[in-house]
């Protein structure tokens, strides 16, 4: 689904629809929500009036001039609206697919033991429905009977079906997903209209999008800058009148629009929507924008070892033979003892032998399986000829055999010290050696943790392992600290402790017992495969159930704030050049000496005003890609990051408009001349 979306972003139909949406947004009732652009719109209407009725204000500026200013103001607003429409449009395609799924849903409800078809939308909390293979699950719920595989691709984009069964961490199902085999009975857990699917639609549609605290703070700043410059222009009029300098009203409006922060004002909501959208594209549903913003401030990241830092399954990584035993023999014994072993550990032993390129003479004999039991704590096979192969934990095998070669014992000790799990292999009750089963750390994690450290984020690993094992894994993965033998309650305590110190904590979790910790953390990301309790407690849900994704979410949060900051700085810095364009222009007639400040040597006052205003309008679409993609972000220290962004957006914001305005001036001067405006 994500790829399909990406193709659509800049498709013709998509852009056309955004163009039209941008026109609809001219409605003042809608514009008033964005005070900066609303001021521009008032200026737009005012200049239209001046164009239509030039005599009404005894203003002798040419009608054509007023008209051009009106047009540029209109374009400015339209560009800002277009940016917003583009970002909103992105989500719309997704919503439409989801809505289609939703409207077509019917459910087979069980009432008094009888099945009965009803509309999915009429289902109440507590109703029980039966869903058979090939049918769509009508609403969120818990499996109360049966086992089934469910295709969740409609929501997660992951095509491999997931097994759902009663109890445990895989009992929750989501409305809109499809049962692909067997049948299950589900108890509905969500109210009509409040299901996960509904939430997701509302979220993407932006219907429920509320301004985040930081967005409100920034809007406040922008509004006050707007008021300041409004004041500047309003008070300029009587002061100029005092000197009998006639400044056309349209010029004053142009000056005001150039000075107020239209660049950031026009793009602010697009930045917010695009930021949330980037989260969505990562297949993460953020329940509100606050959490995404809070991500930027995360100081501590709490990660589960199993599944997050390590693959979760121990894997065989090496063999350690007894002194008198050939490696080949050990591997052969290991091979046979694992032949009937379906566990991931067993399979990993076979894979390792294969990887080593060893030829094992395949037996033709039939054999008897000896499965793992809690009593024996060993598994293996007995061949027809009476040969026995076993592998198991060291102490049980030692008891079973009676004695153990010193080298093997040493190897076992070494493996334990390194945090691994030793498996001892026997053939005919004789110990041949040990297999090193290792908790394998996911690739590339160490580098990512290093990046996190650069960003000032501390990582804490939680694991049920003993301290020795935990320390070894922590060392290997490069996390900052760990909590061994931890229980879910411990996580809550760790979070509380960090928060008491004023830190912002993020964590991932899936189990019901993670729910309190997810709720307590500033940023809680629940796995979609997890229980409903966990999903409800968290403020984000990862549809792919990939615990390491939180690192990307943190980056998106930072990027969102950076984009806002960078464009605000850029917008304010632009004012310097615009002043140098417009101020000499408007006073030139009354004060000929002003030519000295015409640094850009703009051809005429009219061209200067129009160039500045055009630049102000054109910069908005030029910055739409940055608003949508976000400012590029690479983890580095705060100071370096600030220096870099200040150079690009601060100094750049000072210099670029000088070049841009001059360029526009060169282009429009002949046009203005031909129109008789110069």
């Amino acid at each position, binding site marked *: 689904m994500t790829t399909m979306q990406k193709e659509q972003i800049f498709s013709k139909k998509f852009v056309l629809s955004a163009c039209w949406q941008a026109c609809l947004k001219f409605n003042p009732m809608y514009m008033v929500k964005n005070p900066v652009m609303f001021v521009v719109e008032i200026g737009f209407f005012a200049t239209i009036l001046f164009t239509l009725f030039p005599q009404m204000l005894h203003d002798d500026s040419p009608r054509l001039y007023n008209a051009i200013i009106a047009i540029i103001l209109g374009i400015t607003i339209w560009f800002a609206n277009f940016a917003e429409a583009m970002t909103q449009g992105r989500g719309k395609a997704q919503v439409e697919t989801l809505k289609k799924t939703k409207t077509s849903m019917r459910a087979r409800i069980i009432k008094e033991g009888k099945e009965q078809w009803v509309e999915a939308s009429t289902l109440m909390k507590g109703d029980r429905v039966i869903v058979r293979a090939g049918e769509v699950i009508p609403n969120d719920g818990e499996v109360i009977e049966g086992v089934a595989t469910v295709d969740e691709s409609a929501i997660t984009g992951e095509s491999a079906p997931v097994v759902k069964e009663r109890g445990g961490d895989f009992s929750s199902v989501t409305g809109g997903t499809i049962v692909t085999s067997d049948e299950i009975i589900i108890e509905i857990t969500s109210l009509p209209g409040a299901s996960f699917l509904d939430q997701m639609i509302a979220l993407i549609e932006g219907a429920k999008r509320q301004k985040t605290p*930081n967005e409100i*703070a920034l809007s406040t700043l922008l509004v006050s800058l707007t008021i300041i410059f409004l004041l500047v222009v309003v008070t300029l009029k009587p002061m100029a009148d005092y000197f009998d300098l006639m400044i056309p009203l349209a010029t004053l409006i142009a000056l005001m629009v150039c*000075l107020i922060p239209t660049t950031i004002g026009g793009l602010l909501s697009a930045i917010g929507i695009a930021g949330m959208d980037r989260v969505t594209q990562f297949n993460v549903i953020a329940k509100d924008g606050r959490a995404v913003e*809070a991500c930027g401030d995360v100081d501590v990241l709490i990660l589960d070892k199993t599944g997050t830092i390590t693959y979760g399954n121990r894997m065989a990584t090496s063999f350690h033979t007894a002194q008198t035993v050939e490696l080949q023999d050990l591997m052969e014994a290991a091979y046979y003892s694992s032949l009937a072993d379906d566990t991931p550990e067993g399979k990993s032993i076979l894979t390792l032998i294969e990887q080593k390129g060893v030829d094992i003479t395949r037996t033709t004999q039939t054999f008897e399986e000896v499965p793992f039991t809690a009593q024996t704590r060993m598994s293996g096979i007995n061949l027809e000829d009476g040969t026995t192969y076993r592998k198991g934990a060291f102490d049980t095998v030692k008891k079973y055999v009676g004695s153990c070669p010193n080298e093997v014992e040493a190897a076992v000790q070494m493996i334990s010290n390194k945090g691994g799990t030793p498996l001892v292999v026997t053939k005919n009750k004789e110990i041949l050696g040990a297999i090193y089963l290792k908790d394998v750390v996911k690739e590339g994690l160490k580098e990512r943790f290093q990046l996190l450290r650069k960003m000032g984020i501390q990582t804490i690993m939680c694991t049920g392992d003993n301290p020795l094992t935990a320390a070894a894994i922590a060392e290997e993965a490069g996390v900052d600290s760990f909590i061994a033998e931890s229980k879910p309650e411990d996580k809550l305590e760790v979070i509380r402790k960090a928060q008491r110190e004023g830190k912002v904590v993020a964590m991932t979790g899936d189990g019901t017992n993670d729910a309190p910790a997810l709720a307590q953390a500033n940023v809680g990301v629940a796995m979609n495969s997890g229980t409903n309790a966990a999903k409800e407690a968290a403020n984000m849900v990862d549809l792919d159930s990939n615990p390491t994704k939180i690192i990307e979410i943190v980056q998106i*949060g930072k990027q969102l704030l950076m984009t806002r900051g960078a464009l605000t700085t850029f917008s304010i810095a632009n004012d310097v050049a615009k002043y140098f364009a417009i101020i000499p222009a408007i006073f030139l007639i009354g004060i000929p000496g002003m030519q000295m400040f015409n640094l850009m040597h703009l051809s005429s006052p009219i061209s200067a005003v129009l160039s500045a205003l055009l630049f102000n309008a054109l910069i908005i679409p030029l910055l739409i890609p940055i608003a949508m993609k976000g400012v590029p972000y690479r983890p580095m220290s705060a100071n370096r*990051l600030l220096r870099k962004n*200040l150079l690009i957006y601060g100094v750049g914001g000072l210099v670029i408009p000088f070049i841009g305005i001059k360029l526009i001036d060169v282009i429009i001067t002949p046009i203005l001349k031909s129109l008789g405006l110069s």
Partner: protein
Amino acid sequence: MLQIVFVLIIYIPLVLLVGRYVYQVTMNQKTVFNSFFQKIENILYKITGVKQQEMTGKQYVIALLLSNACMIIVSYLILRLQKYVFLNPNQIENMEPTLAFNTVISFMTNTNLQHYSGESAMSYFAQMIVITFMMFTSAASGYAVCMAFCRRFIAKTDRIGNFYKDFTRIIVRILLPFSFVVALALVWQGVPQTLAQNQTITTLEGKSQDLALGPIASMESIKHLGTNGGGFNGANSSTPFENPTALTNVIEILSMMLLPGACVVAFGLMIAYRKQPHKHVVIGKQGAVLFTVMGALFLIGLTAIYISEKTGNPLITALGIDQSNGSMEGKEIRFGIEQSALFTEVTTAFTTGTINNMHDTLTPIGGMVPLFNMMLNVVFGGKGVGLMNMMMYVLLAIFLACLMIGRTPQFLGRKIEAKEMKFIALCILIHPFIILGFSALAVSVAGGVEGITNPGAHGLSQILYEYASSAANNGSGFEGLADNTTFWNVTTGLAMFFGRYTSIILQLAIATLIARKPEQPDSVGTLQTDTPLFGTFLFTIVLVVGALTFLPALTLGPIQEFLTIR
């Protein structure tokens, strides 16, 4: 040049030393002569019944407003009734209501805008009880608020400090002893300190002249130390009785610069000692950044005035008059260009408002710099309040800088959120609102235009200057304006009042909000606000946001004048 460099070189060690002392007073630590001061304070607490309990930000503001309101009422009555009160050897009449309103507001707000001439409009009683008294109390009020403001940034609670206690400590430990020393130095140099009536003498030309005497030295010292600026005489520190020699000029310059600079040092120390109470710190990195940014703005202004005045007025050169000594119109020979330029820069940057030359006759650019200093109102600024104004820009810069590194904004571990941002924005908005709003009003109505004695661009400069001076609580004037009229008395009175109290209330509200927030520990990802990089950013923000607001008005005023006489 040498004279300027000399004064600035003495200033640095002096301000560091006094800054440390101010820090000790602020943090209720023991200072030199502690037991002596403590005894005086205890007596005062006993008489007044001050309980010294800790106050919240709200209580603090209320205490400040109430005490200032009381002083305003009493002083207004004295000015209106001075004719009937003793210590009036020169038979001065009662003051007219709008002038009395303007004068009282002016002195309570530490502005000292004078629409009257002291020697002819005030009795000695009024000079001492209204003027000199308010010079102490308004300075102490401003500084007390600044203390309350700064403390809240490093405290973990909003309930800290007591207004009355701070007020008393500032007067007893800082203002009184310092002004005592300065007054003695001035008396030594020949400044009068007497209660005898004005003397009429026969000059060398055989004509008679009235010499305005009075308790001048005592007022002169607090006038500068408290960044007040209201002169005993109409011509302020340009008269020989207020400022007789180059040495007194230096003393007065240093007195003005001392306490506003010390506030910055004290704040720097508060921040530095917050984390490492036992380390030896001179000013602290954060303090150094603030001080440097202010210092840079100061030096740029000083250079501009100096060069412009030294170059002289092209119109006068065209008349064939030698201007190799610079533009000496309205300046005192005993100070020359250097001491005049420095005095002008200091009195407007530190918003004192005293003058030793007529700002009205400065060259256009030389006159624009003082105007601009007051428009920014953050180049050290008045006692305490300049620092608070600068902090508004600091918080604004932090807001932008934090966003640019992808973190929600915070300063010293405290978050800056929507509510704080609203108040910060309002604070930054008020100042241009008052200056530009009233100036636009003045050029539009007859009452305002009538005051302009100098039509053309200079007339607008006069108006802008008057309101900038009022809003920044500076008090100096482009004296050409005929300002003792109902229009000017009332509008500048309002400008001073709102310029002072709305900012103070909002700023303490911000500090209160900040104090209530939990503190977050620093990490590599936190914005460092004590680096040269941040200093540069802050400097630019002050210039871009502060300057751009006033550029059109300045263009029509001083810049137009500059371009026309060029």
